[in-house]
């Protein structure tokens, strides 16, 4: 992606003025409500945007963010509330007279026009002379680095090029507000990142007030001045990206933005919660609908402390190198696992199997109900899959990973088969203590202790009790026995998960560890010989 000239020069050539600090338009969404049948797509949404500001609306599918954008664009009309641009209510103004440039999620270039004509279309509608508009459009194409593609038709352009032409087309009319409806979602990661930077640069230089809708938090956090997190038609929180991450207003925001651990805790009197043996204050009012004192505490991977100790409360299971930081997966008890970020230098000593002590600093934390809770957010594919605790969590996690993770991984994590390939798998007896992936399915490692099958070591009840403050809860779902005709492919017999944990804690090294490759992802089953577990290509006939 190389622009022929610098953006500033191109903008000057295109006759577009740079932001002078006073340009831009203020936008106010006031109590917007939109109802589709029985669904409240928007439920009293209010947002105020300063001139030249880029606000991103972030949220899961169906949260109403696109509806809000379409109401601003004039493609939808709110049942209640109003849209004010520079203080004037434009709710009843037709979309063609709102002066809003929009870049759509799907490729929206006019197929019968060249790239240049597409960019010039809005100027033509504004009765600009042919020569002037062609010059103006050429300047804009130059600005987005596509001067040489001016004569090409949309089908001759790649997806990224089409979206850049669409961006130039939207900017050509010098819109009062630029609306971006997930414009990068159809592009591959590399192109997405490049275009993301380009959009942000242009937006800052032009000073155009921009509303950006996305479900990709990385996009939102990296581009926006402020990010609004939406849920069920309502705005949960709107704040600067760093504030949203470090100071989330609600548990939903806390879990939706970034990576979050759930650790079992016990609510105490005086607005505190006992977690990992530490009494820490609870943020806000505390969770609603808590049955008893059992709650989950939400802690970021960098919010946990970890030290190597001989008889600690956790065992390192995975390490995922993320550059300067390494994300370490630590199994705390039978079905409680956390991810902890350590500097890569420090993490070098934390080999899988290392006993560690995990503690929590005495800072205020968010808590959520433990039972019947829902993980409302789908983790992004590039993020570590959530390692959560208890049946409720597991079910929520299963929902979120269905279709994103290979079925075999879901199965290893104790989830029922959620895809065709998973249903085809032979019954596998895989206890929940198998290490779950810490970053992506591709880094999945299967660890099984050799002594687990017949380990005489009784699981120390106090272990899980010490971590969770209770015992006997959140056991993994019953395992299906291997079929009789599949003895050669059977796995270690089911056993109490805690005994496996105990052997791991005791420092026994795993004897089999294989990492799955993407190429072999879809045709695998789990198999094991006595004392080992390995991953092998699946047979053609269903076992």
């Amino acid at each position, binding site marked *: 992606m190389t622009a022929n000239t610098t953006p500033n020069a191109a903008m000057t050539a295109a006759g577009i003025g740079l932001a002078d600090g006073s340009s831009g338009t203020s936008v106010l969404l006031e109590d917007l409500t939109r109802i589709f049948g029985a669904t409240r797509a928007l439920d009293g949404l209010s947002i105020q945007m300063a001139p030249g500001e880029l606000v991103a609306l972030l949220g899961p599918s169906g949260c109403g963010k696109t509806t809000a954008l379409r109401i601003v664009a*004039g493609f939808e009309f709110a049942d209640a509330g109003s849209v004010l641009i520079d203080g004037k209510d434009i709710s009843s103004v037709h*979309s063609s007279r709102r002066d809003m440039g929009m870049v759509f999620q799907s*490729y*929206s270039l*006019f*197929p019968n026009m060249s790239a240049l004509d597409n960019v010039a*279309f809005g100027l033509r509608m504004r009765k600009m002379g042919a020569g002037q508009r062609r010059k103006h459009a050429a300047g804009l194409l130059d600005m987005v680095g596509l001067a040489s593609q001016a004569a090409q038709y949309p089908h001759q*352009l790649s997806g990224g*090029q089409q979206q850049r032409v669409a961006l130039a087309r939207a900017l050509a009319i010098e819109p009062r507000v630029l609306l971006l409806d997930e414009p990068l979602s159809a592009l591959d990661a590399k192109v997405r990142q490049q275009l993301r930077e380009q959009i942000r640069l242009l937006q800052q230089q032009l000073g155009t007030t921009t509303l950006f809708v996305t479900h990709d938090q990385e996009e939102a956090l990296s581009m926006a001045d402020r990010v609004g997190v939406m849920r069920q038609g309502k705005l949960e929180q709107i704040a600067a990206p760093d504030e949203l991450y470090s100071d989330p207003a609600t548990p939903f925001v806390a879990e939706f933005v970034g990576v979050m651990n759930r650790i079992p805790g016990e609510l105490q009197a005086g607005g505190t919660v006992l977690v990992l043996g530490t009494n820490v204050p609870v943020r806000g009012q505390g969770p609603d609908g808590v049955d008893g004192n059992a709650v989950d505490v939400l802690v970021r991977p960098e919010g946990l402390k970890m030290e190597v100790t001989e008889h600690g409360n956790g065992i390192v299971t995975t390490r995922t190198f993320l550059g300067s930081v390494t994300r370490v997966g630590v199994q705390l008890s039978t079905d409680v696992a956390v991810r902890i970020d350590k500097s890569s230098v420090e993490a070098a000593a934390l080999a899988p199997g290392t006993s560690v002590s995990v503690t929590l600093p005495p800072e205020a934390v968010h808590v959520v109900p433990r039972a019947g809770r829902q993980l409302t957010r789908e983790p992004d594919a590039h993020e570590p899959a959530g390692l959560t605790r208890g049946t409720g969590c597991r079910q929520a996690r299963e929902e979120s990973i269905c279709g994103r993770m290979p079925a075999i991984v879901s199965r290893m994590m104790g989830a029922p088969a959620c895809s065709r390939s998973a249903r085809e798998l032979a019954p596998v007896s895989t206890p929940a203590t198998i290490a779950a992936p810490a970053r992506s399915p591709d880094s999945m490692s299967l660890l099984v202790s050799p002594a687990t099958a017949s380990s005489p070591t009784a699981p120390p009840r106090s272990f899980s009790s010490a971590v969770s403050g209770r015992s006997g809860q959140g056991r993994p779902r019953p395992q299906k026995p291997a079929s009789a005709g599949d003895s050669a492919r059977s796995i270690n017999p089911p056993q109490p998960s805690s005994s496996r944990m105990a052997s791991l804690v005791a420092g026994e090294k795993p004897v089999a560890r294989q990492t799955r490759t993407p190429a072999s992802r879809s045709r695998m089953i789990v198999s094991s010989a006595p004392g080992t577990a390995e991953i092998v290509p699946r047979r053609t006939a269903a076992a």
Partner: protein
Amino acid sequence: MAAITRPRRAGRRESLPIWRWVILVLAGIYFLIPLIAAFRFTGTSAFGSVISESGFTASLALSVKLAVITTVITIALMLPTAVYVHLRLPRLRRLLEGITILPIVIPPVVLIVGVLQIAPGFIKSTPYLLALEYVVLAMPFAYRAIDAGLRALDLKTITEAASSLGASWTSTLWRVILPNLSTALLSSVVLTVALVLGEFTMASLDLYQTFPVWIYVNSQTSGQVSVAASLLSLFVTWLVLMAITVIGTRRSRKRGGGSVTLFTAARQETAGGEL
């Protein structure tokens, strides 16, 4: 086993083109023999006398007029309807498909009797009543051709994009939708024109001498000239259809689409690759 199956497969592959040729030849014989027979019956001299035959010019002029009027009315009715249904009432698409098929199901005799019963007198007294009847007959063909073109477009997105850039509804229709539907419109025009130029039942029942009626009437007195006129009209219609297919395909390929037939329009393809 493999040694046995391999030659069989190879043999089957080789035999496929032969069967295709056989079918093609059989179909060609079926269609061409009547034409060759007709051509032998007329001889070359009859073609020269077609134009000078009495009633030829008037009947052809009437048919052409009816074709133009029918086409204009059909497109004017069907295009906005199809676009509106696609944009605003997508659930009604199936219903509309069902409705538009009715003129094919209902015999033309029934249609014309009904129309003659209810049509006002001032329309009944002109041959242009036929144009209105032909609009009903042409509706299924025109709607389906336009519908196929619309399905190949992301109509909602490009309409909204045009609107956000300041285009009014008429500008959007004229500058964005129509150019992208040119092939589909061309198809519907050809189908309508071909239908009008070949329609016999309604015209004869309405007692107007359109070109097909003239061919029939003339065949009573001058059989060779009548058959020559039929062959000429067939040839001209075929030429027009071929021209539309070739031109439409060229235009379509220029914009990234596929081959054009009368009822299909390929989806837009997008170049892959890097940014």
